């Protein structure tokens, strides 16, 4: 019971952090809670996700990935509020939750895209902290 209690508290805290600008969704909250538990396992002493770290991660040019896709912005564009474009010319809906409330509510979908895009941009899988920061950042925009 203690774990679920901790999750509930986390959800409440995150809700306070993010709920002011984004529409809350229990499925998204569950995804974040799971990532938080994983991040704590990966990094003992890890406390909580940070939107500013996520925003920096989104803008950064990363090493180790493919030359054509060194940053999230390569396809998603400079602002998560706007549409992006795939290399094959398809629109990508905005990443910010305020513009696209369906974002980060389907766990399999979230996993699929992190798996693919972290490989392409970073040349490795993302850590739970990177994923959590990313989603937290997108919830605040």
């Amino acid at each position, binding site marked *: 019971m203690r774990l679920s209690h901790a999750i509930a508290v986390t959800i409440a805290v995150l809700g306070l952090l993010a709920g002011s600008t984004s529409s809350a969704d229990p499925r998204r909250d569950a995804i974040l809670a799971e990532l938080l538990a994983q991040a704590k396992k990966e990094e003992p002493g890890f406390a909580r996700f940070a939107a500013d770290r996520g925003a920096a991660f989104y803008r950064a040019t990363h090493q180790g990935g493919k030359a054509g*896709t060194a940053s999230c912005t390569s396809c998603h564009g400079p602002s998560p509020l706007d549409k992006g*474009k*795939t290399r094959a010319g*398809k629109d990508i809906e905005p990443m910010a939750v305020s513009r696209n409330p369906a974002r980060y509510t389907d766990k399999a979908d979230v996993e*699929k895209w992190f798996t*693919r895009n972290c*490989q392409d941009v970073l040349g490795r899988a993302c850590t739970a902290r990177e994923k959590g920061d990313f989603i937290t950042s997108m919830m605040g925009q």
Partner: protein
Amino acid sequence: MKAAAGDRWVKVWDRPTRLFHWLLVLLVVGGIVTGFVAPEWWMGVHVWAGYGLVALMGFRLVWGIFGFEYSRVVSFVYPPRDTLEHLKGLLLLRPPHHVGHNPTGALMVFALTGVLLGLVVTGLLVLGGEEKQGPLAAVVGYSVGALAKRAHFWLTMLLLAMVAGHIAGVVAESLLTHDNLVRGIVTGWKKLPPGTPVPSPRSARPVLAAALLAVLAVAAGVTLHGLSRLPPPPSLRVLARNVTYQKECGACHYAFNPSLLPASSWAALMSTLREHFGEDASLDGATTRDLASWLVSNAAETFDTESANRLRVVAADDPYRISSAPYWLRKHASVPPEVFARKGVRTRVNCHACHRDAESGRYDDQAIAIPKE
């Protein structure tokens, strides 16, 4: 009309026959221009020129039975002796006079009729077999259509040579007989030297002609209606929208109809999704299997459309990329790179930007509409 002493003016070509001749000229020129010069999406006009030719020849056949004397086929069927006589006369530069078609001209009429008939038949076979359009779409296979296309081309070459021969013949005959044959087919009157025998002409039977034409038109209509009701064979099936395919593959690129790649390409491509055109496109095992089996079972080999037949042949060094296939490159060679960069197109793989029927996999010539910007 001014005439030399003793010359006789005879009404030879009746109005329907003159109209037929010039409409035929119009349709043949139209067919040649749309067949050789006009862009692909003019194919509809070419096909209508063909249907017009069928109607026109149907009419001429009937008028060849019930028309005015010189329009009747029996009036210009000559025994070989007369034909030889006329040819000999031509060589000696003094061909004997004939009121209607002369024997050599009659030969040309029959030859032209045969070639035009051949063009119509092969055209319908190409339309049905290759383009999967028209009355024979459900009946004729692609390979027959491809063969017919070669015949259609060579018959056109033959027709061009015969048109040249026809014009040369008209000029030669006009000079040698001092009778302007072109004026004849415009006004209907021919000038004959004194002493030329003019038989009493049989008059036209327009009511009978109209009745026979009506019968032929009804027969053609019934045949076309019957053919159009034939169900399309499985090789022309229309695939239902695959929701998973649209969602997973369509997220990044236009979701190509599976008939655009052979089964071997789809199978290999689906087993290498981690390296998919320079990106990681991996999917979970079950989804990958489902999509791969759907793609393979609807691959190019299972369709008989033109694109499926042509794109079965892939580039050896780039077998997954539709836009690297020899046929794709050939068909798009005349499209300037600037067109692919337009806002409405963006990339070479946005097929539906220009091909309005891309989702069906048909890629009809008439369905091409290139965005202006």
